[in-house]
């Protein structure tokens, strides 16, 4: 069952490690007996959590002190590999920092990055599955180099799983001198206030698109979301138009969501949007165009005007209390 040591890049999130980290640990455990979390921060802070999800140990750099994770973590990984560490594969989440780490590391190791991976299997070598054309086809790529395989994993590809393991042993990972590449520094961090459940973790997501007509009408989406305890989301069209912040965007260049219920109102269903929500358990779509591609993935499709259907729906829900 084992392909050799697998490194998983651990990322911090509010209250511990990010869900993508636990998802990748679960997949790594299926493929290998030796799973190591690599962390650009204080290892002790996450040792228990990653241990409980399958990591035997943590390689941690300690606080990066404002340095960007990309060059620091990639530099530290490459130095450890030059010093004798020999991971067969390195799993990195498709996140803001993850892509930086993968890009920098690939140059240091002169090895390719296999990107947008939604599944990984051992078929006499690691084979990654990458959806293309909005998920209509899957490309399977085998890693053929003798270098460590660097895989960028899409969030929500695997189910996180608690293994009941104890706290992972923490080992130090040294960040070498990075020269000019390490000179960018974070001087301030801003957190956008958000209420309710997080978009990529919510059980119900209500998203709006250009079919809402104007910015003010996004209120319909927010009201319905708050009524259902859902997270509000959006298509890129209305993010680019400035109606809602980028953090609301669902799709290829936004968040991947897999809620129990996804409601799309006034969204056409472009392939780049579908990539981000096709994995939802149940999809409800409201669109006035019967030919809209969103109906191709909908379990319940209403061919109708959002300006009529949504207010009626809100009223009916309010009446139920």
């Amino acid at each position: 069952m084992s392909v050799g040591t697998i490194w998983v890049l651990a990322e911090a999130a509010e209250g511990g490690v990010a869900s993508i980290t636990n998802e990748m640990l679960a997949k790594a455990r299926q493929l290998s007996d030796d799973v190591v979390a690599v962390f650009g921060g204080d290892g002790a802070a996450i040792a228990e959590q990653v241990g409980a999800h399958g990591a035997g140990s943590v390689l941690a750099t300690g606080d990066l002190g404002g340095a960007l994770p990309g060059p620091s973590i990639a530099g530290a990984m490459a130095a450890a590999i030059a010093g004798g560490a020999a991971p067969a594969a390195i799993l990195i989440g498709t996140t803001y920092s993850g892509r930086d780490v993968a890009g920098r590391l690939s140059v240091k190791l002169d090895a390719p990055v296999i990107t947008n991976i939604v599944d990984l299997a051992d078929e006499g070598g690691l084979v990654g599955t990458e959806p293309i054309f909005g998920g209509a086809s899957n490309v399977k790529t085998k890693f053929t180099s003798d270098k460590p395989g660097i895989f960028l994993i899409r969030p929500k590809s695997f189910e996180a799983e608690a293994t009941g393991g104890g706290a992972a042993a923490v080992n130090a990972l040294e960040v070498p001198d990075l020269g000019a590449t390490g000179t960018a520094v974070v001087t301030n961090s801003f957190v956008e206030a958000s209420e309710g459940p997080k978009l990529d973790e919510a059980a119900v997501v209500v998203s709006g698109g250009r079919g809402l007509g104007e910015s003010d009408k996004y209120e319909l989406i927010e009201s319905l979301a708050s009524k259902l305890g859902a997270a509000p989301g959006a298509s890129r069209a209305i993010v680019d138009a400035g109606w809602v912040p980028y953090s609301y965007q669902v799709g290829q260049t936004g968040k991947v969501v897999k809620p129990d219920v996804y409601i799309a109102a006034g969204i056409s269903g472009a392939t780049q949007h579908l990539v981000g929500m096709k994995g939802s358990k149940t999809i409800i779509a409201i669109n006035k165009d019967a030919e809209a591609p969103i109906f191709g993935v909908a379990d319940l499709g209403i061919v109708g005007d959002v300006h009529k259907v949504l207010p009626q729906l809100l009223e009916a829900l309010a009446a139920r209390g």
Partner: protein
Amino acid sequence: MVEFHSPAAWEIGHKGRKLTAMKVAVCVKQIPDPADPGALDEATKCLKRDTKLILDESDSYGVEMALQLVDAAGGGEVVLISMAPNSEVNGLRTALAMGADQAILVSDDALAGSDALGTAKVLAAAIQRAEPDLVLAATESSDGYTGTVPEQIAEIMGLPSVTFAKSIVAADGSVNVQRQTEAGYDDVTCPLPCLVSVTAGVVEPRYPSFKGIMAAKSKPVDEVTIADLGIDAGSVGWAGAGQEIVAVEEAPAREAGEIIEDDGEAYQRIVSFLDELKVI
């Protein structure tokens, strides 16, 4: 491999150079029109590129940002960098018409099937020719969207970088960037020369004017091969890829659902549906 100036040499070259004239290199990918359905070539497993290529919309933001930064610096130059098959210049002309000054195009049959790392090696060598203060790219392209090329370019060139920029201000030999994060954004300061990747929607790309379109026709496009850049064909293109596509399969389709025409009462079906799903 390509010989790059060491980072130290870069610093000396740029030391004391005030930002009164800023040279910005912008990576622009020329891609098949995303409105046309894509297809993979059966034999090579590469995206088919037999139609005329256009400027990737994602890169129009970088071009606009570069033009604005040069404006704000009180002068300078915007140099486009592109790697594309068959000496394609259609997308470059669009960006030149927006106002960019010149372009370097790498076109070489040996580059067919390049992976992101191979692409980055080629682009880095081309950028090196321009000796820019700042390199801009999009966070990810519309067709390949690996999102790794910009950071690979920065590492190859020994440059610091900031990815996912929402805004860029240049001052005193450095850039201040708002970088998108999961929770909001970070303020990041980065000394020049450096690379910054920009997200869609950061600026409003201008439409080329008629005058711009006419002027673009006579702007210089320097076409080079990988030999001109001193790159060995074995390290790029399909030969250098280190990965092998073993299968392309149809993904299982979702089952067709219940579609109803709104007769004024359809909202009730949503309510009962949500009820069945125990959401309410």
